């Protein structure tokens, strides 16, 4: 009833190709942004901000990164965790050598290091496709994890082998380190995610995004229409790794506050891949949905039974959690293989024509 586009006329091309053509969508987006930027920091509890919202936003950013590569360009990658690690370690080294430079700049800059590594490991993608490429990216994953563990230069030769985030301030307010409040960190993360999602949205709706999608749909045909495959694929690797790198830097600097190399192991890569596939391949909204489902579901599973007064052993909860996640992944795939983003679209379409079926 409220979701109708009747009476909204488009009088120019810009309005016709707009990403949110319907007024209600724009209002909805504004409301979401308002909730994210005002309501949550104002009223949200420490738990909500620190343990739910910050990691959710960071994982969404990483999922967007992987989605650009896997969803839009059709290149399956299992090296996401390592690329995130590159971002985190690059940021750590940069802020060690140049402690006076604004940390925000280093977080953004760490993405470029990650992008460079991503291009390097993306080089085989011209010859290798599909699952073969996935295994090639596993080489990146294991090699880089090994570097983080075995090469002491990366963690400044400290004894524990883990990295500690130093305190860095922005305009006198501590942003990273132990003294930073969760609200400050939340705002920084939110800023990064909003700006980078906006950039990603412009990328995929423009010429570059179309090139990527052409390569995804059929790379031979794309090549025949004049798209140069190697630069296109490498650009996808670079952009994707950039996003993952920034997400990795945010993960360590603004959430964990320190990291062992084991954080960036192959399980993180799978975790991000789940988010992308469950959320919907080739959809930015889907990345957020996927991150929400995969990240928040285990939290709910952990806290729900005690709330309902069902006494269960923590180890049993862990096992059941695995089973439920596994079963849910299969169920979601059967219900809608195109992901949550597609369910969302179907829902919106139903709302538009409601009360008629179509």
């Amino acid at each position, binding site marked *: 009833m409220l979701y109708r586009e009747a009476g909204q006329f488009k009088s120019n091309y810009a309005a016709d190709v707009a990403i949110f053509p319907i007024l209600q969508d724009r209002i909805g987006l504004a409301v979401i942004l308002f909730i994210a930027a005002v309501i949550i920091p104002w009223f949200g509890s420490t738990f909500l901000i620190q343990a739910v919202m910050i990691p959710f936003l960071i994982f969404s950013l990483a999922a967007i990164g992987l989605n650009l590569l896997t969803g839009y360009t059709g290149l399956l990658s299992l090296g996401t965790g390592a690329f995130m690690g590159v971002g985190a370690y690059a940021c750590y080294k940069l802020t060690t050598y140049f402690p006076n430079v604004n940390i925000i700049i280093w977080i953004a800059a760490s993405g470029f290091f990650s992008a460079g590594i991503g291009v390097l490991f993306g080089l085989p993608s011209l010859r*290798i496709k599909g699952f073969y490429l996935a295994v090639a990216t596993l080489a990146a994953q294991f090699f880089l994890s*090994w570097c983080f563990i075995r090469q002491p230069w990366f963690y400044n030769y400290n004894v524990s082998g883990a990295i500690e985030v130093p305190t860095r301030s922005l305009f006198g307010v501590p942003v990273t380190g132990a003294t930073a409040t969760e609200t400050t960190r939340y705002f920084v993360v939110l800023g990064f995610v909003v700006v980078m999602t906006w950039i990603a949205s412009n990328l995929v709706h423009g010429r570059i995004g179309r090139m990527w999608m052409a390569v995804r749909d059929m790379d031979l045909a794309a090549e025949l229409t004049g798209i140069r495959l190697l630069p296109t694929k490498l650009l996808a690797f670079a952009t994707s790794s950039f996003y993952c790198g920034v997400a990795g830097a945010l993960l360590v600097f603004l959430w964990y506050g320190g990291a062992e190399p084991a954080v960036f192991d192959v399980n993180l890569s799978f975790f991000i891949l789940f988010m992308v596939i469950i959320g919907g391949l080739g959809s930015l909204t889907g990345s957020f949905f996927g991150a929400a489902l995969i990240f928040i579901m285990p939290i709910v599973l952990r806290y729900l039974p005690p709330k309902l007064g069902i006494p269960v052993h923590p180890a049993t909860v862990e096992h059941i959690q695995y089973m439920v996640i596994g079963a849910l992944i299969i169920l979601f795939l059967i219900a809608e293989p195109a992901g949550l983003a597609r369910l969302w679209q179907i829902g919106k379409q139903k709302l538009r024509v409601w009360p008629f079926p179509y």
Partner: protein
Amino acid sequence: MDMLYQIFIDPFVQMGTAPDLFVQTLWEGMVGGMLYALIALGFVLIFKASGVFNFAQGIMVVFAALTLVGLHEHGIPAYLALALTILVMLGLAFAVERLILRPLVNQPDIILFMATFGLTYFLIGFGELIFGGETKIMIANQLGLPRGAIDLKFAGGFVSIQKIDVAAAIIASIMVAGLAIFFQRTRIGRALRAVADSHRAALSVGISLEQIWVIVWFAAGLVALTTGIMWGARSDVSFALDVIALKALPVLILGGLTSIPGAIVGGLIIGIGEKLGEFYWGPLMGSGIESWFAYVIALIFLLFRPQGLFGERIIERI
């Protein structure tokens, strides 16, 4: 210059001066490679027949081993437990076909791949819930497998060979030979190959896809059980096998996703390559290179043959 000597000459000098160590490393590599080859074999069986890249194969190995040991712990005699485990794997094959493959038929590869991830998680949780998460010891003795080591005199030194490894090699060879005969000589084997060639053509001549899928997943389950026993007898039964299962992936692409000989040759190449690399070149780079060396070997092979050593040539059409 010194660096180059360390990398290109010194390891070979070491191999020449201590041939017994070299042979020992080679043997260790072969045994490790056999394990990879067996896991890869399970992958290949399923990929050939249903086009599903079955990520859950590694977990099926653990699950089978865990079921076997768990049943024995509940007081069931070893051989009866073995038979029951085979039944469990058959049940698993039916469940997978009915609950995962059938609803997801004709979906893109990546969706099926993802579904096997779901299966992996489910099996991890299920196995731990029923049999507990702690590591267990494989009932190798009760199953009549030999133990102890044979020391062979060789080039002025000793090469130590575990009896269980020899037994594993023999059983693995018998199993591969059996599978080859099954694929080449029987009616079902012919149907399997037809399905591998083309699902639609196979359907049109009256081959039941459902039936074939159950058979293939059951065969992969049997391979998983064998792998689980062999591997469990060497170390313990725990979910740490995850990482080893991932090692089967470079083996797989090295050999080609669709080739059974490829899986075996690939497994041996990767196993030997990574042991030699770790032993002779590892110390130069601060050891532990085993974790990624296999992938780099596979990557180098792939750059020259993108379809793997024995894979079918990829022909692309527009």
